């Protein structure tokens, strides 16, 4: 991955460009003072304890849920759900 990717490619948005408003926010961060007292990550307590992991089981979706997922799928042809063309360089 040495190729430099532009933000429009990274974002999958045609013609996307960095915005001035957002760049101003980034400048504030670049110029902000952060202390180096080793507190990094000390307040991230959202990790789940290994004893508290949910069970690794398959939960069957309801018939209604399956039906709605199919209805939401963008394209259907002869009973099959059609994905976009997947041939890539």
């Amino acid at each position: 991955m040495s190729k430099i990717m532009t933000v429009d490619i990274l974002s999958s948005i045609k013609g996307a460009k960095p915005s001035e408003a957002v760049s101003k926010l980034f400048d504030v961060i670049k110029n902000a003072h952060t202390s180096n007292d080793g507190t990094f990550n000390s307040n991230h307590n959202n990790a789940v304890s290994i004893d508290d992991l949910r069970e690794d089981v398959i939960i069957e979706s309801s018939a209604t849920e399956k039906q709605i997922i199919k209805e939401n799928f963008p394209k259907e042809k002869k009973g099959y759900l059609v994905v976009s063309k997947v041939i890539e360089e």
Partner: protein
Amino acid sequence: MMESQIKSIHHKLVNKEISCLALVKEKLNLLKSNTHNTVNSLLEDYALALASKVDEKITNGEAIGLLEGIPFGIKDVYMVEGTYTTASSDLLKNYKSAYTATAIQKLLDAGAIPIVKENCDSFGHGSSSENTIFGAVKNAKNPELVAGGSSGGSAVNVAKDFTVFSIGGDTGGSIRQPAGYNGIYGLKPTYGRISRYGLMAYASSTDCVGPIAKSIEDIRIVLNVISGKDTKDQTTYASQNITEESISPNNSIKSVGYFKNFVESEAIDPKIKSDFLSAVVKIKAKGIKVRELDFFKSDTLVSTYYTLAMAETASNLSRLDGTNYGNRIEGENLKDSYSITRSENFSEETKRRIVGGNQVLSQGFSDEIYLKGLALRDQISQNFENDFNEVDVIISPVTPSTPPKIGDSLKDPLAMYLSDAYTVGFSLGQLPTLTVPQGTETGLQITAAKDNDELVLKFANFLKDTI
């Protein structure tokens, strides 16, 4: 100030002063005829069927729960099986939820009746509820002004009595700011108190589910029902039920702090500043010690919040490419299909945030901006921890200014970001924060330490009698 509407309606239902069907019909009619653009879709048939069942129970002499038959609104970013969940976006304009969000399921289990999916900023991206395909939401007090956002439709519905309460979502102020702009209560609970399962993700590390209502008591009732540990959101924790007695005002709150730099900022409206300081004087007069606290500069808070939120939303919304759902537009090849689908269906503001997020996550930028943003967030959290060793609660204005006119915010995104200066810090700290419709024209925020939501409600009850 209003007392519990939930309790008052419950008594009327039980005493057969009103039927649930008539109540739900009345609210649906109000929503249908409203000109504030609060409605994305009505859940009419579903709600009427549920209302009839409640009436049947009452007729048969069966007991009903406190929330049974109470009509409520849902910000259109929550999954409710079989209903349209659009996030106010073109991309999901025709998307139907396949399952129901945990918080909403808990309300359904308690018998509450959802009647409307409410207008909001697309994917929560905005502070004015103008970034929506359903038309800008108009403020409840003055329809020329914005409703605030992103939960603008929810706040206006509550303020105008179109719903008894609504469930909003708050990532950087999206419940508290519209509550302030429309003169009602809105709570962002402690992060993790309520499951995010079934809430369309914006910035997962600060996304919170919360109630919007006209009384502290209704906030408490709804909060208790929707809180709790959920295996489907592993950041949730088990919390204590908050009793009515435990939040009645007594003299247990001894010290209050406020951030000096919020009030001394050049950006604050002079009237909001003087009203805030008068509120401080009234609190002092009750014998409570008030301390001025130091805090990070507003631009640092806003920049840290937006940097992290954009990084997270870029990642969360990368799944919306028209492959499994969403309004797919075919291109010449797969990548082309993705990018046409996304460029045509995302709003300008959403694209701005996705692009910003991908910028900070990319090589060369991430150390300088994203990782530094994370480090700043840690310092902000540490600052709060130190503060809550000194004071019981922190009060702040909700916004530096009064609501802008519709049309003004979209022109100047940076000004919109900076208007979130007083709400985003508490989001980064994952702290419980309540907007109360008192003190300044856009209300006051009350914040306590993590998992101390009870103290926030208690202080709100105290303020109700004090200022």
